[in-house]
Each structure stands twice: as structure tokens, then as C-alpha cells.
């Protein structure tokens, strides 16, 4: 039995202590801890890395505070379109969905694509058809609704901007995550298998069917037992152009870097040089973990079988 570990994130961005209240800090800490505990329980029972990250992400998707599943941001058209991806490092199987509507847990749907289809990547209306066929739980539009996301969207819907610079109530002010807020998880189980997954509502006020890096295998999500499992969050376009998640794996495999070194190289050098703001979490097949960010903060947490248990927000 080898060391097992789980790392999660709830998005990176302008997360600074001055903007935080004790209530909100507590709510985030609780949300992250619950997700860590749920995933860790799976690992402790000898469960797979895939099942552990799925359990953690389901809770983050169900939590209104994070921009994934329930509480996802609104698109330009005032609807929610969600993306998710999962990859199993033991066999390089992967599943991803984009432009998903009404699926309670997009990560469940991505897992169905990985396990029960011949495809890797499904998009748009077809994802609903596939969800119905697989019996994945659906919810009406109002389930996903959150007042602060709606207000965020209303404040900028008639502009062409994607970010939020106008707020009037405390919660809204605190929730000005703008394009960040994606959730993700990576795990190494006691059998030495790694897996990674990411789920997001994308950018507030996004249009033209824009897709970020989250559902793109190699960009926002990647896992390979030979190297690592990675989940990213941040300025998606830059993560796609730099093939960020796979690049960590390539640096480990081809240049012999450690997980931490490879993640530093990608996040703090490559992404910084192209002004790609954000961060990523990673785990290798020995259970080593890392959390690297170049933004002001990233909601994140780690728990492993050596007794490490941390939840952090700021840099």
C-alpha cells in the first residue's frame, strides 16, 4: 500500500484577505473541507483515484460558492453552460463535455463519456441526449440559479466585457471572481493510480460558445500514471495555447523534473511570460502533491495519508 493523497481547488484569481469577511472565509473553508473529506474517505477505503476526485468535485459542483454545477455563471444569453473533464492516469482514458445544460453534476457526465462511450469529447445539445441515455441526473434551470451570479451577469450583460467591475452588496463584492471559480481535483490512490478532473461554468457573459481550458484534455486536465495528474484554473485561453497540464507531464517525463519543479516552470515561467493568470494543482504517482499559482489567490486544499490536511486561499 502506497501513500495516497488528494488535492482540490475552487478557482484562482483576485482572492485577497482584505476582500474577505470571516463568514465568507468560513463558508469557503467548510466547502473545501467537505469536498476534501468526501474524496479522502474514498481513498482511505481503498477506492480508486477516479472515484475519489469525482466524489470531491460533486460536492464542489453542488456548492453555490463555486463556479461549477449549481452556482455557475451566466452566459451572454443569460443561461448556464457548463464544461467538465476527467482523466484516468492508469489507462489514459478520458471524458469531457462542453456546453452542458441542466445536468446536475457535469463531472458525472464526463465520467460517463470516459467509461461508457467511444468518444472523449462531447459538446452542446448532444450532451443532454447522452445524459438522458445514461440516466445522469438532470435539474431544471432554477436549480443552477444564484442571485449573485445573476446580478453579476446583469451588471455587464449589455457591455462586451467579460469581467465584473460593478457591485453594490457585500456578497456580490466578495464574489467578484470574474472569470475564475472553476473547481478541480487530483488524487493518487493506494494502488498508485492517479486521476485528474476539472469542472466549470466558464466565464461570466461568455458568448459565441466560448470554451476554456477545463474540458480540453492536455490543457486544463491531464493524468498519466508515469508522471502526474493535473487540474488547472485561470485564464483558459493561455492554458490552451501553452498545453499547460500536459506540459507538466512532458517536463517530468522528458526532462526528469519533479512535480513541483515542472509545475513551477509552467505556472511561474511559461504562463507568466504570456500573461496567463491562474494556477494548478498536481499529484504524482508516489502521492507527492503541489499547488502552484501566479494569481493573488486560489481556493485550495490538500489531504494525504501522512496526515497532511490544509485548506488555503491566499498566496
Amino acid at each position, binding site marked *: 500500500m502506497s501513500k495516497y493523497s488528494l488535492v482540490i481547488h475552487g478557482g484562482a484569481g483576485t482572492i485577497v484577505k482584505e476582500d474577505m469577511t470571516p463568514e465568507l472565509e468560513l463558508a469557503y473553508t467548510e466547502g473545501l473541507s467537505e469536498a476534501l473529506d468526501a474524496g479522502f474517505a474514498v481513498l482511505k477505503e481503498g477506492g480508486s483515484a477516479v472515484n475519489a476526485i469525482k466524489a470531491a468535485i460533486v460536492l464542489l459542483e453542488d456548492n453555490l460558492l463555486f463556479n461549477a454545477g449549481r452556482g455557475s455563471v451566466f452566459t451572454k444569453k443569460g443561461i448556464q453552460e457548463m464544461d467538465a473533464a476527467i482523466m484516468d492516469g492508469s489507462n489514459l*482514458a478520458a471524458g469531457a463535455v*462542453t456546453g452542458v445544460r441542466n445536468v446536475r453534476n457535469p463531472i458525472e457526465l464526463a465520467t460517463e463519456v470516459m467509461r461508457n462511450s467511444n468518444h*472523449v469529447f462531447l459538446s452542446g445539445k448532444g450532451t443532454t441526449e*447522452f445524459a438522458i*441515455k445514461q440516466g445522469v441526473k438532470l435539474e431544471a434551470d432554477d436549480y443552477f440559479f444564484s442571485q449573485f451570479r445573476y446580478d453579476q451577469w446583469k451588471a455587464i450583460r449589455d457591455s462586451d466585457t467579460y469581467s465584473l467591475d460593478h457591485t453594490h452588496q457585500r456578497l456580490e463584492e466578495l464574489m467578484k471572481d470574474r472569470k475564475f471559480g472553476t473547481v478541480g481535483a487530483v488524487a493518487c490512490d493506494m494502488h498508485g493510480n492517479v486521476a485528474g478532473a476539472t469542472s466549470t461554468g466558464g466565464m461570466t457573459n461568455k458568448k459565441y460558445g*466560448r*470554451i476554456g481550458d477545463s474540458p*480540453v*484534455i492536455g490543457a486544463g486536465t491531464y493524468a498519466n500514471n508515469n508522471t502526474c495528474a493535473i487540474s488547472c484554473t485561470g485564464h483558459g485561453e493561455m492554458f490552451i495555447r501553452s498545453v499547460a497540464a500536459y506540459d507538466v507531464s512532458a517536463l517530468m517525463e522528458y526532462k526528469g523534473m519533479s512535480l513541483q519543479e515542472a509545475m513551477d516552470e509552467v505556472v511561474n515561467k511559461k504562463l507568466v511570460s504570456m500573461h496567463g493568470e491562474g494556477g494548478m494543482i498536481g499529484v504524482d504517482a508516489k502521492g507527492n502533491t503541489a499547488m502552484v499559482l501566479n494569481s493573488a489567490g486560489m481556493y485550495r486544499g490538500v489531504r494525504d495519508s501522512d496526515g497532511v490536511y490544509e485548506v488555503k486561499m491566499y498566496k
Partner: protein
Amino acid sequence: MRNIFLLLTAFLLQFTISLAQKTTKGNYVLVIHGGAGTILKSKMTPEKEAAYRAALQKALETGYAALQSGKSSVDAVEATIHILEDDPHFNAGKGAVFTHDGRNELDAAIMDGKTLSAGAVAGVRTVRNPISAARAVMDKSEHVLLTGAGADQFAKEAGLEIVDPSYFFTQDRWDNLQQALKEDSIKAKKNRGSNDDPTPYDTSETILTQNNKYGIINIDNKFGTVGCVALDLYGNLAAGTSTGGMTNKKYGRVGDSPIIGAGTYANNNTVAVSCTGWGEFFIRCTVAYDLSAMMEYKKMSVKDAGKAVIDKVAKLGGDGGLIALDKNGNMTMPFNTEGMYRGAVTKDGKIEIYFYRIEN
């Protein structure tokens, strides 16, 4: 005196040899593919062969002319792919395959190796030349990947030529779909009433035989993607890929073509790559970027790295091919299928066109 003369001759000879090696080594400026698959000489007619050859020739000449006139590699890639998209022989633009619902849904991507900027579209239905939609995403938006009706809308606003979806119709591709649907319904009866995706995703080595047994994948239904990589006079690389995807595809399936790093990648420091084949495996292997990473991190040649990535795809049970052109003008066109429509042009304008494995 005589000794000095001999030494000089020897030196000159060596110089000439190394010069000759250099020119034959880094010789190529533009490489294209028109898809990999079961392309067998025994199944080819002289007319069909001539038609494919003419189409590839025209595409190569177009791209070469663009480069010769001083245009960028991005311009050359776009112009070359236009020719292939407009030609109904290839599964891209006009002549694209049909989805399960009888529609044409097109994907394309382009990447500029100089700036690492990229643009891609997935599931567009009304843009005459999807590669130009990808180009517009790269040049005129802050995004990289747009999908579905939103991508069509963006292309329209960017001023691209919009066509009725019926523009993409070809009888051959329609007949292919009808055939695939018929096979589906026969299989449905055989496979306890479940006609789609009867086997779970399997990465074992038996996947090919297993899929053939169930007949769920018609190997030839998913190839025919087109792609181009180019090196311009200024030393800039670019790559582009355009496809109609798989015949009978369902659920908004997206393959590797529009995925930066999987089906398409370009970086001036290393290489430009465009892939074709069983997209799911190319996504899982991050093929195009992996080739670049092997060159950058392991100092492998484009040829060795090209072979290594195709071997990885094969090991997972996938098949297909790719074209790659490095910053020094070295190219490779590896594939593990029976054949791949492919061609290249040297900086002197010499054109090479190949179809089958045996010529490689």
C-alpha cells in the same frame, strides 16, 4: 606548395559536401495531408488516383505561391486548406461527412508558431471555409475555441462567407451515412437492442478487434481530415487542420482536429504539426504537442519524434497519421494506417505526392 594545394582541395571538398547535406536536409517549406485510412492501391482506380493527385497538387501549388510571394506561413496554411475544403474529395468543408442526424458539423484549428496564438471552431454548420473561421477566432477575438451556433455567429460577424448548410451536401457522403445507419440497425438487433456505444471505453490492446467484432466503428468513416504545415521566408511556422469529423457521429462529438496540442500545434522553437486519424486517441495522447515536447525537451529529430508519437497512439489501440515540419525545413509524414493522402513542396518548388505506405 603541393601540400597546401591538396589541403585546400580537401577543405573545399568537405565544404561542398556539408553544403550539399544542408540543402538536402532542410528542404521543405509546405506539407499537406488529406487524411489517413484504408487507402490501398488495389482499391484505387486510375481516375480516382488522378483526381486526388490533382487536388493535392493544386493545394501544394497554392500554398507554395503564397509563400513565394512573401506571405506568412499562416496565410499559406489558410490558402492551402481552402483548396482542400472546397474540394469534395476530402472530409472537410464541401464533402464533409454527415452526423447521425444527417447534418454537417465542421471543426478546424490554426496556430501561429511565432506568437503561439491559436484559433479553433467546433461544430460550425454555415461557414464555407471553417479554417478561416478558426483564423478569425485567432486574429479577431480574445478566445481560442468557439463552438456550435455561437461559432457560426462569430464567423458571420467577422464577415466570412456564410452558406446554407446544404452547400456541404455530397451524394457520396450521404450514401455513407445511410450505409452506417443501416449497419447500426442490424447491429442493434444483434446487440440486445442497444445500438450505440455497446462497448465501454477500453484501452486494452484488444480494442481494435473488439470494436470490429461489435462493428461499432467503421474504420473508414472517420478519416479524410485535411491539414497543412508551412515554413515561411521569415522562418515562421504555422499549422492548420480542418475536418467534418466522423460519419454518423453523435452527441456533438468533437475529435482532435480543433484541439490545440492534440490535432494541431505550431511553435517556432520546434515544429508545426497537423494530425489525422482516430481523434479520441490523438486527444488522449496530446499528439501534436507531444511531438514538439520531445523535440524541445529530449532534443529528438522531427522524424524520430514523429515516429515515437504515432507509436504511442498505436500502443493505445489507435491509428492515424500526421505531418510535421520543423523550423529548419525538415519534415516527416508518419502514419500507421494503410495509407495517407499527403504531399510536400521544397523551397525550389519541387512537389512530392504520396498515397500509400509502400512509397514511404
